[in-house]
């Protein structure tokens, strides 16, 4: 390599725009992006779904051409000489690019052939990769039979079979369990340290930003920030606090705080509410929650997410901030939560052939509770969910929802349930109003009652302005609102949410959860699945699932409490999850 190369950035992007046309609609995926990624470090491409991360990756890899602007990879213009760039760069697309009916070894062989790895060095290279990814025992297993985490590692091994100078990873950690996520980060750190590989890593998980050496923050096709993630976090020092009170419920406190003046962000964290202030000044409890006694406020460490929220809030016009505070309900009767089990699950099992997707699980959910099913892809969450909705008959066990046995009375139980499916399952070609009308008529709402509920939904979810727009054209956050509105048309007692916030931006996620909290306060029972560890904090109680089993059950606080050590005084939900999986694996191998 010529010495002059050293000074060049790994990737430089200058004034790049790119739009896509579907039918008559032209959507700008990237809007005048200028950025660069340096050599030998991990650059994080951070942003929610629809921010333009994948489009940018594909432009860098030469899979798309920009409408305007120029991208250089190691000094080479990608648009002119894509093939030259592709020999020096490796790219792992979102679904890892594996051939599922080929074995681990055959996948490696294929990519070694495609990348022209000489036979002589293969043995050694394979040994390294298999050791690094822990896939050595599985070389003859078909890729389709691997777990999500193992697929991710095989995908990575295939891109590394010829050591690339630049590695592009497009959301490699989506839906992968936290243990695999950590192992992936170890591999990446190893690569940048030993091979000086330049890595561009895209993710929607804001907590991963802190592991990057530099970040590019993206939102709706624009670059809204770039730099060292630690600097972003440092700017938020002295602005984050934990607030605890026994006088009002945590949900009421969070609701009131999110509307209070001088507060950028308020989220529930275990039993406390975590707040971020406008200025680096300790907040005054009496001002924040007037008339509420027994409030303690303590400083909390800043997080990268706080700075992202601050950036997003700054972009939002002041008019869009939630207005006047609403009265705070003092915790008088909230303690008298109903003890009635609305959902009861005992010895529930579901087999698909020889495969046990759900293996003897049990839990119960009380009225008005927010209950979480937390686990990676393939843990059995969705299968459990489908059984609870009466969409899939169980192989064995007891399943009662709203007093109905789902094995004998699935239809009446379904009338009491609202269901918001993954990816929102809306009719994209229908307008917002038509979607609402369809879903309400599916639940047998007619005439005046139907009109009344549609009007309610349009007003409650601020969808009036979009009433006649095709729902497929809505921004992701609005699609999410509409999907929730559709699930609530028949005023269900129980609400099932399947991965409701995956990929939406943090503000939309906060708004969504504030609606869910309000519903729970009105007595609606809520069951939610998520692989988003932080989301578990919103749940009153949750179970952690892995490989079809429940590993632990309890409040988020209790699950984290078990891990509190002097060296880890404030463990995260992810720490708890990782510890549980490791214990389960240790027990399995001991047995």
């Amino acid at each position, binding site marked *: 390599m010529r010495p002059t190369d050293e000074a060049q950035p790994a990737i430089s992007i200058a004034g790049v725009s790119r739009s896509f046309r579907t039918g008559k609609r032209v959507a700008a995926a990237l809007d005048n992006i200028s950025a660069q990624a340096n050599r030998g470090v991990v650059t994080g491409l951070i942003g929610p779904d629809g921010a333009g991360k994948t489009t940018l990756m*594909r432009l860098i*890899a*030469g*899979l*798309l*051409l920009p409408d305007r602007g120029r991208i250089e990879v190691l000094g080479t213009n990608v648009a002119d000489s*894509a*093939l030259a760039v*592709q*020999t020096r*760069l*490796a*790219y*792992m*697309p*979102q*679904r*890892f*690019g*594996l*051939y*599922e*009916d*080929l074995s681990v070894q*055959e996948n490696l*062989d*294929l*990519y*070694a*052939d*495609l*990348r*022209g790895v000489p036979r002589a060095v293969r043995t050694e290279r394979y040994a390294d990769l298999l050791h690094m990814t822990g896939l050595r025992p599985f070389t003859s297993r*078909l890729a389709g039979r691997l777990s999500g985490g193992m697929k991710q590692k095989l995908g990575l091994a*295939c891109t590394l079979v010829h050591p690339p100078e630049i590695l592009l990873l497009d959301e490699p950690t989506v839906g992968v369990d936290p243990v695999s996520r950590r192992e992936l980060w170890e591999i990446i750190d190893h690569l940048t340290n030993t091979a000086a590989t330049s890595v561009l890593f895209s993710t929607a998980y804001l907590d991963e930003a802190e592991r990057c050496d530099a970040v590019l923050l993206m939102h709706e096709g624009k670059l809204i920030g770039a730099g060292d993630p630690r600097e972003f976090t440092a700017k938020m020092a002295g602005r984050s606090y934990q607030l605890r009170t026994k006088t009002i419920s945590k949900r009421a406190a969070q609701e009131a705080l999110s509307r209070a003046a001088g507060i950028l962000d308020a989220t529930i964290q275990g039993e406390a509410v975590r707040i971020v202030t406008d200025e680096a000044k300790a907040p005054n409890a009496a001002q924040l929650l007037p008339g509420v006694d027994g409030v303690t406020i303590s400083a909390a460490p800043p997080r990268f997410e706080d700075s992202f929220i601050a950036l997003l809030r700054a972009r939002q016009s002041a008019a869009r901030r939630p207005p006047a505070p609403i009265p705070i309900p003092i915790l008088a009767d909230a303690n008298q939560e109903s003890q009635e089990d609305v959902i009861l699950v005992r010895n529930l099992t579901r087999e698909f052939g020889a495969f046990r997707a759900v293996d003897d699980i049990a839990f119960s959910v009380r009225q008005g509770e927010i209950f979480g099913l937390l686990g990676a892809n393939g843990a059995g969450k969705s299968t459990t969910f489908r059984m609870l909705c009466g969409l899939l008959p169980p192989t064995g066990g007891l399943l009662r929802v709203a007093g109905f046995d789902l094995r004998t009375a699935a239809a009446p139980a379904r009338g009491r349930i609202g269901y918001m499916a993954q990816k929102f399952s809306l009719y994209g070609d229908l307008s917002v109003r038509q979607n609402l009308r369809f879903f309400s008529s599916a639940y047998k709402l007619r005439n005046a009652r139907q009109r009344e509920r549609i009007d309610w939904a349009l007003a409650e979810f601020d969808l009036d302005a979009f009433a006649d727009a095709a729902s497929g054209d809505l921004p992701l956050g609005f699609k999410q609102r509409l999907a929730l509105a559709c699930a609530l048309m028949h005023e269900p007692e129980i609400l099932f949410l399947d991965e409701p916030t995956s990929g939406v931006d943090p503000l939309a996620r906060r708004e969504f959860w504030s609606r869910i909290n309000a519903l729970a306060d009105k007595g609606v029972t809520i069951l939610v699945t998520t692989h988003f560890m932080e989301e578990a904090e919103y749940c009153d109680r949750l179970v952690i699932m892995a490989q079809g089993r429940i590993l632990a059950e309890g409040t988020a606080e209790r699950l984290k409490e078990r891990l509190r050590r002097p060296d880890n005084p404030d463990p995260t939900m992810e720490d708890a999850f990782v510890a549980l999986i490791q214990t389960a694996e240790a027990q399995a191998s001991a047995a």
Partner: protein
Amino acid sequence: MMDRLSILRLRGLLRKEFLQILRDPSALAIAFLLPAILLLLFGYGVSLDARNAPLAVVIEQPTPLAADFAANLEHSPYFSPRRFASFREAELAMDRREAVGVIWLRADFARKADDGGPAPIGVIVNGVDANNARLIEGYIQQVWVNWLQASATRAGRALAFPAVVHPRVWFNPAVQSRDYLTPGLIAVIMTLTGALLTALVIAREWERGTMEALMVTPVAIWEILTAKLIPYFVLGMGGMAASVLIAVLLFAVPFQGSGWTLTLCSALFMLAALGMGLLISTFARNQFVAGQTAIIVTFLPAFILSGFIFDIGSMPAAVQFLTHLVAARYFVTILQSVFLAGDIWSVIAPNAAALLIMAVVFLGAVRLTARKRLD
């Protein structure tokens, strides 16, 4: 172009493709099962011959003469006659589709014949299916002429016709429409198989996201295309061989031509069909769209415009012109020649040349339009 790395990449892709064919039965199903099922379905189901056609026979007054005529109908392979007591009942049977026609011998049939005729034979044929009706009409006439001749011979006198027709059928002496239809059918089925093979497997790579991963490797687009073409060419030719075996062994279709002519022409046709599939795959990025497109733009035109059932000569001029764009048209002609007549080069050569041109055009269009990009 073919450097060492290129060969290495091509070999890797080919091995991958063959492993996938062995492990995922869908490609084998398209190559072998689909032609076999369609061939059996059409081979047994579609026949342009009237055989054992149910015929209602009404004899108002049984006489030896009438019985003799009825017996002739019984012996004909084309009919399975059924007796009805009155014309009204026969009519009802025809309404219920239990009979395709009625033979009506009135009470005065024998008397008029004895009086030196003409004795009328009433013939009513259901004309809804015009093609079938004409066949039935012809068969009845044939039975009638045979019967007249036999009666005359029995009576010891020659039937006096001013001219005699000696029909002789060439190329399909058994006059079985299946012998004629099956070769054409093979061409039509192979059009679908060939297009589906490439269109579906590439759409599958798009769907599973593996195409995106392939494209970022230093592989060239022609290497990807070649690695798809070779395995599915082999598979398609296997399906072709299976179809020919079914035709010859099961349907007993005569095979007059030579194996190598058939192989050569089939190879040309297969390249054209696979080329169509590849062209479809350059824009259809999921298997559903690819499958639908393959059926609509290859199978349906092949079925209607190849001349395998519908005679091209009797189509309007504009439609006749369109048939030249259908590869199956040339292959139908070649197969019909090779099966029924033999290696008639004056027929085969121009059609084979047309197939060659189509293969070059389709594969060339694929080469020009395929890009190593997602848009």
